């Protein structure tokens, strides 16, 4: 997030797109509710009428995978009415003219044809967002999990830059991080192309710095494989071993039949986790780590706030601290490590990580610290891009609309999208083992529009078979008007009705994110067993 969570309260306009905020990020919804009370206008754009749309001043339902068309339409209206911030554009951005040319090709009527939102509503959103003094964008996986995920994000950045809604209090572009420490995992170099704080593995200077600190001659400067790349490598035998720490790709990744096949080919699959997950079932070695309640350390949240995790109970059974397990393997492997505590690791990390350089455990008492925090005196950073955009000048991208990788047809006539429900989290490893949450929602379901249900003769709670080019599953139908006719929705938490058997692994060419938010499926009443 470029802003802090609390800043939402003072925004004049909040544009929520592709985020089921009150379900997936409830404590951010809290701030949006308060903003509404303070007089902010709330815009929600989502193919599903998500819960937070209940408080929206404007709610629109775009067709799945048509965000670029919708956003270009909005920007077209902003430009033609002169609601853009020319001074901001001139001083702080570049490549505006090229961008403008593309957006000019999206008058609202034309955008409406593609995205299914009326030209009138597109104009309303443009006016509401374009005229607001402090405008914030909130987005989540509904924007990113597309083959055009990068295009979608660039379009949102375009929108913010166009109106100068960036680098100020309560104005910015705010992706909500789905997992408690996805920010931290990225910051810590849990990515194939960067070391900590996004220092490129290809940079000779960074590579040399880390090699020296880590006591090795040199590090590989070759960009590594992403998850899809590793799975592909397993299939074509170039990857032989996979070490999985606290992840469950057999439930979370698209086209799980394919994922399973790839993992089964591994010569060595090591899974370090706290429950016997579907991925652990395939492992050669399963190492019991500990939960957050049994460990010390830090997490970095969606607003870049680093805060402490503290050990509350002793490890369960013979389970061991995750860092100790890794250290032990490293020592046995022949690369010595000798950390005494998580704090010890943290202190080494900050020496190599400019954005965390000023942080230490004592400073994290109290409110924690938001990076960047370059020195021990630095108070941390509430919002990014103040006065100047981080890369120097904000770059406008000319982005045209591209359809999703898979389009509905006669054989697969429904659009499928996946997501979360309020009582569960990700692959359900933890939430489904919590009695209260399990009692709230115990099984998966398919949201089906009431009119579609009538057409295929399905009543509420009845079993349906849903199939895509990749597989098929049976699940109970939940009839609703929340979802548009011709579209269906499924939560992905439930392995017995695993939505990711159906989803499309086609991914964005740049960031490799899979298109989990849209694919083509068929839905029929489940045939009676013979």
């Amino acid at each position: 997030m470029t802003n802090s969570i609390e800043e939402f309260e003072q925004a004049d306009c909040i544009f929520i797109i592709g985020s089921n905020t009150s379900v997936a990020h409830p404590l951010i919804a809290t701030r949006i509710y308060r903003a509404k009370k303070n007089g902010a206008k709330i815009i929600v754009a989502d193919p599903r009428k998500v819960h937070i749309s209940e408080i929206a001043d404007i709610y629109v339902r775009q067709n799945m995978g048509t965000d670029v068309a919708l956003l270009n339409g909005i920007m077209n209206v902003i430009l033609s009415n002169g609601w853009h911030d020319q001074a901001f554009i001139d001083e702080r951005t570049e490549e505006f003219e090229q961008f403008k040319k593309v957006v000019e090709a999206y008058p609202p009527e034309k955008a409406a044809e593609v995205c299914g939102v009326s030209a009138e509503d597109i104009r309303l959103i443009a006016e509401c967002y374009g005229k607001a003094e402090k405008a914030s964008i909130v987005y989540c996986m509904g924007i990113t999990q597309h083959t055009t995920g990068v295009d979608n994000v660039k379009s949102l950045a375009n929108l913010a830059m166009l109106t100068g809604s960036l680098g100020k209090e309560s104005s910015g572009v705010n992706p909500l991080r789905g997992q408690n420490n996805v920010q931290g995992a990225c910051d810590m170099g849990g990515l194939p192309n960067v070391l900590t704080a996004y220092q490129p593995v290809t940079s000779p200077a960074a590579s040399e710095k880390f090699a020296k600190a880590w006591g090795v001659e040199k590090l590989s400067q070759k960009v590594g494989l992403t998850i899809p790349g590793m799975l592909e490598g397993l299939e074509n035998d170039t990857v032989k071993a996979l070490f999985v720490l606290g992840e469950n790709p057999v439930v979370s990744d698209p086209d799980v039949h394919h994922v399973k096949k790839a993992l089964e080919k591994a010569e060595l699959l090591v899974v370090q986790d706290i429950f016997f997950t579907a991925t652990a079932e395939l492992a050669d070695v399963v190492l019991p780590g500990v939960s957050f309640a049994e460990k010390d350390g830090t997490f970095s949240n969606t607003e870049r706030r680093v805060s402490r995790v503290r050990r509350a109970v002793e490890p369960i059974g013979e389970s061991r601290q995750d860092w100790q397990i890794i250290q032990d393997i490293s020592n046995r492997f022949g690369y010595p490590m000798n950390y005494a505590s998580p704090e010890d690791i943290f202190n080494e990390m900050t020496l190599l990580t400019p954005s965390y350089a000023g942080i230490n455990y004592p400073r994290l008492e109290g409110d924690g610290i938001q990076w960047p925090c370059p020195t021990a005196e630095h108070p941390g950073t509430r919002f990014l891009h103040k006065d100047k955009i981080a890369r120097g000048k904000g770059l406008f991208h000319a982005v045209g609309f591209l359809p999703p990788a898979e389009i509905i047809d006669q054989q697969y006539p429904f659009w499928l999208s996946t997501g979360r429900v309020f009582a569960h989290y990700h692959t359900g490893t933890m939430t489904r083992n919590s009695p209260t949450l399990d009692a709230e929602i115990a099984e998966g379901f398919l949201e089906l529009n009431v009119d579609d249900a009538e057409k295929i003769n399905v009543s509420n709670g009845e079993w349906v078979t849903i199939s895509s080019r990749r597989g098929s599953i049976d699940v109970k139908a939940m009839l609703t008007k929340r979802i548009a006719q011709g579209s269906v929705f499924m939560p992905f938490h439930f392995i017995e009705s695993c939505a990711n058997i159906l989803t499309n692994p086609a991914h964005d060419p740049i960031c490799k994110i899979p298109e989990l938010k849209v694919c083509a499926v068929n839905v029929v009443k489940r045939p009676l067993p013979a």
Partner: protein
Amino acid sequence: MDYRTVLTTCTYCGCGCNFFLEVLDGKAIGTIPCKTSPVNEGKLCIKGWNVHEFIHNEKRLKRPLLRKNGRLEEVSWDEALDYTAARLKEIKEKSGPDSIGFLTSAKVTNEENYILQKFARAGVNTNNVDHCARL
């Protein structure tokens, strides 16, 4: 008797709410949202309020498992760690460092992410490091 409240950070979504785990005689029995937290100000969602429930769940993994004759069997830590390190070494020597991949995790701490990517990069010498940021 041992009753304590331990301030920590939620393990679910990216909000990063702070709460006290209520611990009685070594068992987490409750979750108390922290009033002075700048993130959640004494509030939580349904997942946060019940986060203590899975900690002592019977199904938690308690001992290392190793596949022998096609079946996962409980083994000692020494055996599991020796096996893992030896196999990784073997595979690296035979097929090169880039034949090994690492999934770090959006669920574990910064420290654990750091140490695993360090092992991958400095120990094994590969940049095949990724996690489910995209999922």
